[in-house]
């Protein structure tokens, strides 16, 4: 479970100070897929970065499985699987070596590492590329490798920043199935997106974020009911008060 309480994060100082996250609070529960929805520049990536302790919030609290990120950042990272916005691979290493590197950094036993890697390779259908160097991988192959390496330590909580970015239709469908599988396994899945259909199709809960603030935290149905719009996209536009930055 991921709990975010009154999170604040600003960049710059003085007149140039920009509040990227301005008092965001929400909860992502186990066995659910929570979508962090917002236009570009709404503060999604910054919020997620505070979650996986890459950034320190100016104020507020982050709890992952009850562990306070400010107190025990290593403990938080141990129970998190993260697919960040930046998902660069080591191009001179094979996909397998890329995955194993992160497994070792998590301190996983060699035997467990093999088992987990093979399992993920099957689940992500990437067995054929496992022993190829990642240089020249397609976008889809790269994302698969990045996800495998993010989940190799069998984390209970999974954070994905725009996981379907740059994927084609088939790869996007496969990704959605994979997220659903993670949910069935009882994990807490939190992902960010600016794509309405994706969020509507997948999420048990939608957290709409705009200008660093949470403007809605509901189930898709409740969201429609709350705004009085039958269509989720219209509901979304109504919530953030503008259709600027809304790309489908």
């Amino acid at each position, binding site marked *: 479970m991921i709990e975010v309480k009154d999170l604040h994060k600003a960049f710059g100082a003085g007149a140039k100070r920009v509040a990227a996250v301005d008092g965001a609070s929400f909860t992502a529960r186990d066995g659910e897929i929570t979508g962090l929805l917002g236009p570009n520049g709404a503060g999604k990536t910054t919020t997620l970065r505070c979650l*996986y302790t*890459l*950034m*320190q919030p100016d104020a507020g609290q982050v709890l992952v499985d009850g562990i306070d990120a400010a107190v025990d950042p*290593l*403990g938080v*990272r*141990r129970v*998190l699987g*993260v*697919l*960040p*916005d*930046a*998902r*660069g*691979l*080591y*191009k*001179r*290493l094979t996909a397998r*070596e890329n995955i194993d*590197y*992160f497994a*070792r*950094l*998590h*301190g996983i036993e060699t035997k467990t590492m093999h088992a987990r890697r093979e399992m993920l390779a099957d689940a992500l259908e990437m067995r054929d590329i496992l022993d190829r160097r990642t240089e020249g991988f397609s976008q889809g192959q790269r994302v698969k490798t*990045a996800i495998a*390496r*993010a989940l190799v330590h069998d984390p209970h909580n999974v954070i994905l920043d725009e996981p379907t970015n740059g994927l084609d239709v088939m790869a996007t469908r496969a990704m959605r199935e994979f997220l659903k599988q993670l949910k069935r396994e009882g994990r807490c899945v939190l992902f960010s997106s600016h794509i309405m259909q994706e969020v509507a199709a997948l999420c048990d809960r939608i957290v709409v974020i705009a200008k660093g603030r949470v403007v809605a935290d509901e189930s898709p149905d409740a969201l429609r009911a709350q705004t009085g719009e039958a269509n989720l996209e219209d509901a979304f536009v109504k919530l953030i008060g503008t259709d600027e930055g809304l790309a489908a």
Partner: protein
Amino acid sequence: MKSALTVFLKEVRENLRDRRTVINTLVTGPLMAPLIFVLLINTLVTHELDKAEKPLSLPVAGAQYAPNLIAALKQNNVEIKDALVDPEKAVREQDADAVLRIPADFAKSWDKGEPAQVEIVYDQSQRDSDSAVSRLRGILEHYGQRTGALRLLARGLSPTILKPLAVADRDQSTPQSRSGMMFAMLPYFFILGGFIGGMALAIDTTAGERERQSLEPLLANPVPRWQILAGKLGATTAFAITTVLLSILAFAVVGQFLPTEKIGMSLTIGVRFVVFTILIMLPLAALLAALQTTVAAFAKSYREAQTYLSLLMFVPIIPTMLMSLMPFKAQVWMYATPLVGQQVIITRLMRGDPVPDSALALCFVCTALAALIICVIAARIYRSERLAISA
């Protein structure tokens, strides 16, 4: 520390697969020093030998006024050339190293027994002319003394009357110490080797990783940042040290074949030289690696890091320049200063001068301490939030 080892092994493996890095570490870096040296020394030796053995080509103005002097010059392997229109200009423009001018009244003064003047026209700022001028002056002075002695004998006096004082040179320089000046550049080439060896990794593991967008996922792992840094620093240091080791060994091999004895110099490149040089270069390689990593961590991109590091490469040349230009006496603070200490010790080792154990220890410890301080600074930089963000 297990994570640091994981990072170290991964960086080493990944960079060993990069052909450019491997060539720089194992070939270009280590071979550069010996190659430049062979080139330099060979040119120098050939040049010096040429000058000493070749007939001295000398334009003479007014040769007809002193046939005996000209004959004496010819006997001493001087090739007399026709007079030039403007000797001063010819010398300035390096058309001639030196020009001898004999005035028209030379014979008159000579016959009367008065000092007969000849002029050597040369340009002292042209270093090339040094040996020509001193050879010519030697021949002329010798000719003058001989004639003077003959004149004294003709008057029934002993020529020794003009030599109340006999000065004898007792040069204490050894062939090794004479080569010292010439080899003052050597430590810089070793340092440069280490620099080139560590450069690719310093950039690849910091600015490169950020540019490839792999730093953020890496930092999402439950590993303290200082351990990640330690692994990266370790890998960079390992490559730098490998280059330095190979560089010293390559020099030790090539140095045996340098024709330095021909110009009365010799090098002491034995086991002692190799072992002690490696000993004091090890902490310096670590220091340079840490410095490179720190500087590269500031850079936003691979290119920017390359620019910074290229500039940084010129820093170690400063003590080298100062020391090869100015004569100095080894002092304690020199041994304690990184770069300077290595410079002094390597030069002394090569000259065959004794280097006290305490100086070696001081140099090693102080450089290692400096390396440690830079590592701590690098670790502090690595803790900063901005470092991780790719875009």
